[in-house]
């Protein structure tokens, strides 16, 4: 063990003495049932910060220290990770699991450390006046449901009247998220929603797909996670459900979800909150300055993949928020509270994304103290099995705010009432 330790490259975890630095915990899940999704995300998240350290010497001259902590997607380990890293001066948490997020929301509020839940977690955290320290830009699950429906509207010349849409969902808090939005949208656009639940873990979905085969809904939306995704895509191919009418959400649209089904998955659609483009200049820089010198969090084989890109995008947003906070407060060694101000003033523009080496990676949006949700835009991507890659099919699609806004208000105010919070911007 001793030999093992001394030989180990301790790039990430070396307990450096307390000096001015920006501490970013990375609550990763490289083990357990969901490891396949956690590894590329964490690699992307860390590699981007390493790139900033190598290329720019950190942010505003301040080096970044990433502390990785393994959660295995387990809430209790997540608590341990949070408690063990918060004392180090953690600036922002990316909890990466619905369970850990819900657990951390009240804690982070009490400790004054911001949380960034990018496209997951509690949707109504959009309301920044109730959730001062929780941010879920650029998009959330209710946006996703609306984006999917808007895409379908586009496909059907603006009318979904009389259509049937089936929602295949993971029978958990995460999977149930879009139901309310879809019901409201169904009333508005006249489509009929069939809810089809799949119990965890979802290895056996014969009943569900036989039902789809019998009822032949016009479209199938999927809120899947883990092994459920691979099985669902395989079963959809088995019952010959047309892949171009089958849309997964953004946690059901990575390479590892479709590859086990092979060619049968060709044409599978999924949502995404960021653009996939393996030729971004920033990837070249990461390959040259991080992977080549052997400082990558992984072996570099994930660079450019869907979840790697998302992880890197998350890091990019965090880095931009840090820069913003430094600009607002005029100090480089920022505190979590200053970080919160930076996140609340974050602005992503086309020129800025281009400067960062990733043009159009995400939607153009600006965060405010009232709206922590960003623009909510998402795009639809298509799996090309022969090329082995997802390709963007549409540009960013705007969700239907008239439906989502009231739902956000209702849920966030209910939370505020339950927890005695008077909605107000953080001072």
């Amino acid at each position: 063990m001793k030999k093992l330790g001394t030989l180990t490259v301790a790039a990430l975890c070396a307990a450096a003495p307390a000096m001015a630095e920006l501490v970013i915990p990375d609550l990763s899940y490289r083990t357990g049932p969901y490891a396949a999704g956690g590894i590329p995300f964490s690699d992307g998240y860390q590699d981007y910060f390493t790139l900033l350290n190598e290329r720019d010497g950190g942010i505003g001259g301040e080096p970044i220290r990433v502390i990785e902590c393994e959660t295995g997607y387990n809430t209790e380990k997540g608590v341990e990770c949070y408690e063990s890293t918060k004392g180090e001066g953690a600036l922002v948490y990316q909890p990466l699991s619905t369970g850990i997020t819900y657990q951390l929301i009240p804690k982070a509020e009490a400790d004054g450390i911001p949380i960034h839940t990018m496209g997951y977690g509690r949707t109504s955290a959009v309301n920044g006046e109730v959730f001062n320290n929780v941010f879920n830009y650029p998009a959330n699950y209710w946006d996703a449901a609306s984006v999917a429906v808007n895409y379908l509207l586009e496909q059907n010349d603006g009318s979904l009247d009389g259509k049937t849409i089936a929602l295949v969902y993971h029978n958990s808090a995460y999977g149930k998220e879009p139901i309310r939005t879809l019901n409201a949208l169904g009333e508005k656009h006249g489509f009929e929603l069939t809810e089809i639940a799949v119990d965890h873990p979802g290895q056996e979905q014969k009943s569900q797909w036989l039902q789809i085969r019998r009822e032949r809904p016009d479209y199938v939306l999927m809120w899947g996670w883990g092994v459920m995704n691979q099985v669902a895509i395989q079963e959809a191919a088995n019952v010959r459900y047309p892949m171009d009418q089958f849309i997964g959400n953004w946690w059901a649209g990575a390479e590892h979800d479709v590859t086990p089904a092979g060619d049968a998955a060709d044409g599978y659609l999924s949502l995404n909150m960021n653009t996939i483009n393996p030729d971004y200049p920033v990837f070249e820089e990461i390959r040259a300055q991080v992977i080549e010198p052997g400082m990558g969090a992984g072996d570099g084989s994930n660079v450019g993949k869907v979840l790697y890109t998302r992880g890197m995008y998350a890091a990019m947003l965090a880095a931009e928020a840090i820069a913003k906070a430094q600009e607002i407060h005029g100090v480089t060694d920022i505190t979590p509270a200053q970080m919160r101000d930076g996140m609340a003033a974050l602005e992503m523009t086309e020129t800025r994304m281009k400067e960062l080496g990733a043009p159009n990676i995400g939607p153009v949006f600006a965060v405010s103290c009232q709206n922590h949700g960003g623009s909510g835009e998402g795009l639809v991507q298509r799996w090309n099995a022969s090329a082995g890659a997802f390709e963007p099919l549409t540009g960013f699609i705007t969700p239907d705010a008239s439906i989502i806004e009231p739902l956000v208000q209702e849920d966030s105010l209910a939370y505020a009432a339950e927890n005695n919070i008077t909605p107000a911007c953080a001072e």
Partner: protein
Amino acid sequence: MLYREAGDFKTSYAKDNQTFPIKFDRTGYWVILIAAAVVVPFMVNDYWASSLLVPFLIYAIAALGLNILVGYCGQVSLGTGGFMAVGAYSSYKLMTAFPWMDMFSVTILSGVITAIVGAAFGLPSLRIKGFYLAVATLAAQFFLVWLFNKVSWFYNYSASGQISAPERSVFGILVTGPNTAAWAQYLFCLIFVVVLAWVARNLTRGTVGRKWMAIRDMDIAAEIIGVNPLRAKLSAFAVSSFFIGIAGGLFFTVYLGAVEVGEVFGIQKSFLVLFMVIIGGLGSIFGSFAGAAFLVLLPVVLKVVGVDMLGMPTDIVAHLNLVIVGGLIIFFLIVEPHGLAQLWRLTKEKLRLWPFPH
């Protein structure tokens, strides 16, 4: 020498019947209790409370409860996760429906509700035995988790189906919610642990406990000598579920604060608590604590050693963690098949003679 047992004379039955008949044990017990109640609260910080002590105490309650059922009454159950969920959801419903209720009542009532549910699910035990029963209790596990997920009344119709604990206090001191002080969390759990351990210890050495053990050792023989198997088995299920319900309630209200039933109270939890009981030692109060400590603290210790001290990649540490825990379980079994409690008993035997063995 170290372990002073010799010369400990007793002149009355009452003295001989004490929980700790040996003076050295008795002193040790009081020292630990006083240290836990008086010294630790001043030293504990958020990390120690949330990562180590509170989960350890809560798992110890759950393990005590399961040990009553499995270790004393011989009914193997894999429904622990489901019963903990009953406790958690009862607490949530009570806290939101009756905001004036204090946390002691909430937690104890949750235990009572769980006891009723547990006794109901214990009915099949009258006919089904051994591993068959273990698998049968899984029906309870899966059904309860499904129920809490499906019926939105249980989570007050919230959009996400998660429940989160509102702030509640005891004697003006916050014990739930994010602003709770570490020491308050810890002490609140400690009170339950001490009282429940005392109850468990005295139940198991009284009439009820002896009936349970008679059933465990051979139920037909027990029936012949006049133990009513229906009452013995159902009372074991009820008492065990009461403990587990309290553990589930505390797990949600004090420890996590927000819970999603499928993830937190899934089948893995049932197995985890059963592992604690078996590793600690069946039919032993001390074993329940030892087992809980082993499975809660060891992963954290291994993580601290591997990641923070040796600087190994986190995923390798997590994998090695499994290998080491698994290896240790097997190793302990080969050395001493009856769990950590038996190992402790043997150690005492050895210490008694130390440094001059036979």
